């Protein structure tokens, strides 16, 4: 399939990009890494009149740290997010998630901002944002908004972004003392969308786990923070936590994988991740390259 005709602009500044988006309204779509949008164009699932390419705006990419917050520019490629020394040191959860994001060619091109703005419910970054308590920084015409990840992902491909706004950065608080994290994803083949995934953060002490944030993906129309399950685990009740997932998740019933299967797998993944976080063991991961 071939995309229908569209116009193309490559502004050199964020203000110019926002002006174009404002001028053309719903007819304009920002182009980040293009790993989902270009496919949608070719499949004729999307037919914007104008693509506003964000790839020539230098200030949108890069990783930095300031006062206990790691800021990742929206146009930072998946690979550059997960391999940045700062991320590997401060946000090991993100580094652990990286190998699960599709394949190297896609990781080299796709961006964290694009992934967060698209909000595919079976992808890794939105869940990581949720688990890590990230803040999504967005800019519209003239204004900047800062939205907690908890309030950003609203539904299937639906976010709190308003028309004319784009994601400019994602800010992650640097985890403090005693912080632990967990990540696990089950997909049919390496690089496939998750059947079930779990990104988790918390704090471990002699008495157990606390401040748990369990962000499941692939099991609802958006990444889901399983609060009841987290509370049960903090209370030392893994079985209760696994049972609680029945009410917290709403897995899709797709032709290849039943909803019951996803729920079952979510419980298995929860058990494994919570066990590792509790025991302080890191999963042995076969590397699929960065």
């Amino acid at each position: 399939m071939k995309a229908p005709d569209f116009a193309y602009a490559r502004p050199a500044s964020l203000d110019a990009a926002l002006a174009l988006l404002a001028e053309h309204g719903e007819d304009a779509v920002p182009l980040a890494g293009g790993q989902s949008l270009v496919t949608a164009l070719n499949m004729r699932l999307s037919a914007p009149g104008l693509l506003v390419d964000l790839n020539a705006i230098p200030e949108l990419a890069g990783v930095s740290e300031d006062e206990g917050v790691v800021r990742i520019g929206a146009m930072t490629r998946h690979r550059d997010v997960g391999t940045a020394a700062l991320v590997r040191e401060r946000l090991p959860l993100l580094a652990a998630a990286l190998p699960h994001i599709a394949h190297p060619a896609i990781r080299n091109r796709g961006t964290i901002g694009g992934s967060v703005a698209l909000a595919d419910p079976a992808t890794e970054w939105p869940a990581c944002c949720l688990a890590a308590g990230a803040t999504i920084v967005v800019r519209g015409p003239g204004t900047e908004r800062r939205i907690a990840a908890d309030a950003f992902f609203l539904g299937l491909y639906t976010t709190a972004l308003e028309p004319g706004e784009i994601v400019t950065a994602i800010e992650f608080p640097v985890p403090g003392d005693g912080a632990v994290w967990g990540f696990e994803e089950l997909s049919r083949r390496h690089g496939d969308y998750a059947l079930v995934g779990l990104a988790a953060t918390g704090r471990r002490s002699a008495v157990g786990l606390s401040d748990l944030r369990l962000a499941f993906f692939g099991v609802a129309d958006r990444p889901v923070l399983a609060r009841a399950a987290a509370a049960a685990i903090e209370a030392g009740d893994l079985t209760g936590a696994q049972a609680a997932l029945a009410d917290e998740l709403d897995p899709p019933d797709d032709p290849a994988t039943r909803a019951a299967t996803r729920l079952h797998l979510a419980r298995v993944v929860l058990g494994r991740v919570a066990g590792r976080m509790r025991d302080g063991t890191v999963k042995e991961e076969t590397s699929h390259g960065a």
Partner: protein
Amino acid sequence: MSADLSGLTFLDRPNSYIGRSVPRPNARRLLEGRGVYVDDVAVARLGHVAFLRSPHAHARIVALDTADAKAMPGVIAVVTGPELAAVCTPWVGVLGHFKGLRSAPQHALALDRVTWVGEPFCAVVARSRAEAEDALAAIMVEFDPLPAVVDMETALESATPPIHPELGDNLAFERVLDVGDVDAAFRDAAVVVEETFQFGRHTGVCLEPRAILADWAAADGMLTVHHSFQAPHMMQDILCKHLALSEGAVRVICKDVGGSFGIKVHIYPDEMATCALALMLKRPVKFVADRLESFQSDIHARDHRVTARMAFSAEGDILALDMDDLTGIGPYSVYPRTSAVEANQVVNLTGGPYRHQHYRARARVVLQNKAPTCQYRAVGHPIATMVAEGLIDLGAARLGLDPFAVRVRNVIPDDAYPCAGVSGIKLEKLSHQAALAKLRAMMDYDGLREEQALLRQRGIHRGIGLAAFIEITNPSAAFYGVGGARISAQDGCTIRLDPQGGVVAAVSVTEQGQGTEGIIAQIVATATGVPMDQVRVISGDTQTTPYGGGTWASRGAGIGGEAAWQAGKALRGNVLAVAGAILQADPGSLDIRDGAVVDAATGTERMPLSELGRIVYFRPDTLPPGVQPEFVATRHYVPKDYPFAFTNGVQASYVEVDTETGFVRLLKHWCVEDCGTVLNPLLVDEQIRGGIVQGIGGALFEHCLYDAEGQLLNGSMADYLVPMAGEMPDIDVAHVVSATASSEIGAKGAGEAGTAGAPAAVVNAINDALAPLGARVSRQPVTPDVVLEALGLI
């Protein structure tokens, strides 16, 4: 493999390339991106066609308005089914030797009724594919949906309407085979096991999708067709028939082809329509399937449900096999090879490695409103192998016997050949016993069983699966020709010696990436004595190669290779006759080695071929009187002794099942197979490995999913899961060599053996791993859903 008077075979020729892993001559060109696939062919005034395809599984086309589309920018023509039918006649996919096989006339573009999601019924030709797709959106269609026949299990019920009312019902073909006294054997058996096996519908996914460029030059009355296809002469013949052209008016060129697997050997409505459009518009027209329409319109395969039972003696002898196969083939039997072949092969092949004498099989082939199915790599073999090998494991477990031992006990012994299999298939020479012995040592079966037992104590569930199989290769005219299909069973090779001493070999077998041209170059170099780097091979052009069948059914090396060998020998004879006259020597005392005429006994060089070429081509006046050099030789070959050259082999799989997630990890795979003479070990081993991976695809991953209304639910590479390297195990390959005496080179086919046995080996391994938990799977693909259901966890 025959020997000459000296007792030497071609393997002993001083400059033999046979049996050596020489690199493929075309590999570098393809790696450098210099391949010429259909989409790389540049022609002036090219029109791009896009097709409007049915969104319904079954519907009547009530109204079709193309006026707006015709007015769209760049549009050259918008053509409907009835308009195209004035140029291209319909076809019916039946053959005389499948008695009772029925189908209905099929048009290149559906006339007034669509019968599967993806069936083309209107075409737009425009300056670009994008403009053609723009115009598709402007075509107004009104459908009247009709009841869709989706489930093959209910397709034959009286309440189910026939897809083609003139046929009365949805039964396309039925075959019943009853050999020996099956009922008595089951009555007297110590143990009877039964299972229902389900084989998901899947397809062959080619890197290069189907593609065709048809160019009608009215001035010289020539339709030139660049086609991503396996059988150019078949396509030429069919285009002549349905477009009312003479043979000389159609040239089909299959230059580089990016994979085929049997997908590109059938007649597709959109490709016929593209050729008809070129005639109508008097200009070149190109169609390249995109990935979505590939999934919707490439042939699918498998989609079988087999209920089968096997009878055993207390000692573990297989006494009898009784099976019932049901398969859904879509709304039409595919032209010209028909869609009855897979079920027919299942009947012929099930239990084929074994020596039981009582066998009953029924196969029913039903029509349904899904994409048509037809022959895809290892037609019927994975089904036949799974049924027998699955039942043997069940029987072994019931009898408390080792599954390896039960196979050793039951295979037809290596010294029993030639003989016939229970279904009547004629077997020249197979090597099941030798293959099993080799496999047992190669995989360290006993050591693996010990490891498995130890790990089970730690809660790790590993399984070992075995699968013995036979494979149909080198088909004679018995495959298609006797049924009336104009598909050549014979193939030819023409070799020309040029003045500098190089040769050009034109062959009618074709190359789709498996290395056919490399094999031919090896054989030609060996036969003629010309170094391999001075051999050029031409294939895939109806105008410049001998007439032949192309490459399918694992026939390229065994049939095309023998033609090349015979042509090479003939050319060497011709060349030595002339050399003998010039050198005043007995031609029988001379040979050609490494590009020079030599004294055969001593190897002393007498004259380089370049000198001989100089004399013959530029100074023929100096030749002795009466010498007329013929530096071109052509030979053809068709197997005649046996309808097919059966091969055999055995595979083993070692897997680990995560009994919490239902995920299967493939740890290792082994294959010992016997394709006769191994012409190029590297190419054969990679054929086996690639075939195994495709078999694993069907066993674990690939599935064309339809909903109850006949909608295809997965039409992209994101949700149709092809097997990928990350999940594949290491695969060890070894060979037993039982050369066929039907040809001098003794090669049988090797292209499908991997696919034939891999699914059964993997599924048996999964069941072996699950056995301690009382769980068992029998539905492919074996997804986590299937395993978790078997474990009772969901």
